[in-house]
């Protein structure tokens, strides 16, 4: 490899690091993402310079096709469909690493007829495994989120022992592959087990837990890129792969912590079944309803409003209506803010993206820690499609499955209006006692309609 190409790879590694570093401020984030894209461009150019020219036509054809598909989906997808999109792309990334590893394996065993070095064989096996699991796992996650297959956990007896048995078989086959590198049967066994394990580990997990799974699989795709780096002895793959690996793990941790569940608990699956039965025997709550007219009148008499958005706002696409409400309130000098819970919605930062889409300035979105003290001095809290993230049971009721999860203290405000379709439960499947509080009024119906006062 010539020194110029090496330096180009070094520069693109630095650009990836800087790009991620600049994501730590909203102001610099966009430029950071562009730097990171520039890094990718440099890495691709350097690689193109390095390879022989014979196959340029095929290469360009592949790139054009890939870029066209990528651009099309990236521009078409709705903001509410982000989790699905990341899942799909992530699956593609995993399959790419998987294919590169296999391509390299067949080249080495069939043409060069060299005995492959230990490190390389191991890296190939790791890359096939992680890449395969990432691929099928992400596709299942995508199908669940997209509603193509049922979002409810698919469990069967002996599931975990079966997974364990498959994993042990994989290890055995891997060991034999290290010894006899050229046996095609062994490599097919490795491929099949990886793909099957990806499916089996994701199907028992409920659709609502998919964001955690996707974030974890994102981390895996980074690790697969790392393993490919070890196969090809290429530093930029290792640097970029490690950064992605770390990113996925941290996001996963953040989500689990904010949901007050352990990663193991999420991965073992079947969440939501025990809870729904527990919810039934709770005392039925009597609520006070409020109509659209009365709500509009209430707004005339307040001076400060905090909006708590939740998953329901995302589904109903109510963010634009809320923007209009905000503009009207600001015309009347009503103080108007948003309280953003770290796991409101179904993806970390979900609400921020949707509200940004509706053209709401990001300095109006206040994070949980900063705004929790302000609720007691607030005249009116409007909860739009949020449920779990304002459930006081997380503070008061040690029996509740969400006990200990940090929540927004919306119940402390003078008046609370909850706008949602029905008395339906949220993600965690628990009753929300807030709805029965004396200062709480229910505004039932699709959240996007009634607010058009």
């Amino acid at each position: 490899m010539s020194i110029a190409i090496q330096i180009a790879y070094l520069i693109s590694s630095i650009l990836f690091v800087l790009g991620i570093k600049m994501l730590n401020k909203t102001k610099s984030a966009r430029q950071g993402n562009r730097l990171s894209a520039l890094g990718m461009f440099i890495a691709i150019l350097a690689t193109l310079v390095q390879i022989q020219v014979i196959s340029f036509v095929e290469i360009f054809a592949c790139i054009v096709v890939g870029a066209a598909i990528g651009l099309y989906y990236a521009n078409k997808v709705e903001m509410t469909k982000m989790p699905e999109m990341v899942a799909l792309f992530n699956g593609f990334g995993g399959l790419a690493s998987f294919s590169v590893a296999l391509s390299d394996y067949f080249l080495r065993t069939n043409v060069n007829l060299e005995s492959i070095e230990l490190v390389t064989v191991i890296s190939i096996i790791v890359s096939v495994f992680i890449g395969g699991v990432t691929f099928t796992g992400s596709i299942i996650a995508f199908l669940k989120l997209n509603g193509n297959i049922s979002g409810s956990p698919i469990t069967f007896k002996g599931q975990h022992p079966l997974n364990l048995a498959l994993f042990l078989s994989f290890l055995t086959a891997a060991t034999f592959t290290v010894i006899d590198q050229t046996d095609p049967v062994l490599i097919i066994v490795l491929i099949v087990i990886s793909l099957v394990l990806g499916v089996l580990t994701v199907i028992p997990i409920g659709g609502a837990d998919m964001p955690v799974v996707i974030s974890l699989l994102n981390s895996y795709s980074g690790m697969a890129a790392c393993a490919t780096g070890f196969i090809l002895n290429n530093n930029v793959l290792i640097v970029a792969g490690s950064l992605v690996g770390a990113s996925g793990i941290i996001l996963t941790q953040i989500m689990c912590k904010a949901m007050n569940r352990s990663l193991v608990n999420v991965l073992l699956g079947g969440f939501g079944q025990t809870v729904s039965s527990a919810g039934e025997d709770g005392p039925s709550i009597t609520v006070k309803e409020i109509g659209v007219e009365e709500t509009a009148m209430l707004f005339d008499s307040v001076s400060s409003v905090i909006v708590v958005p939740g998953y329901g706002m995302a589904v109903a696409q109510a963010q634009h209506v809320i923007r209009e409400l905000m503009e009207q309130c600001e015309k009347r000098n009503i103080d108007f803010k948003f309280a953003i819970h770290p796991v409101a919605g179904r993806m970390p930062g979900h609400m921020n993206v949707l509200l940004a889409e509706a053209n709401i300035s990001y300095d109006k979105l206040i994070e949980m820690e900063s705004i929790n003290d302000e609720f007691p001095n607030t005249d009116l809290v409007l909860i739009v499609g949020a449920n779990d993230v304002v459930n006081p049971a997380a503070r008061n009721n040690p029996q509740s499955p969400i006990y200990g999860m940090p929540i927004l203290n919306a119940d402390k405000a003078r008046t609370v209006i909850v706008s949602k379709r029905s008395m339906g439960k949220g993600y965690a499947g628990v009753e929300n006692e807030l709805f029965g509080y004396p200062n709480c009024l229910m505004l039932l119906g699709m959240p996007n309609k009634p607010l058009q006062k």
Partner: protein
Amino acid sequence: MSSEALIILIYILVLASFLGFELIAKVPPTLHTPLMSGSNAISGITIVGALLACNEMGYVTLSKWLGMIALVLATINVVGGYTVTDRMLKMFKKK
């Protein structure tokens, strides 16, 4: 690969992982969705491997086809990932 070369790759792995943890722990929750899709785009770096694999065309048919599949998929991942992240970040505005 000599053991020295391997060790050095491990140094890079370890340092980059530590660095990744420190950098990402500082990203505010507001930006977690773009972070997820942006880092997903970075994982498309495997496109470098795909290009090298395509180059093996003509030697082994299987390797060639696998390389081409990998190239298409990795390009989708890279181009789509960066574009959608940019689209999202463009919306974050302060007035």
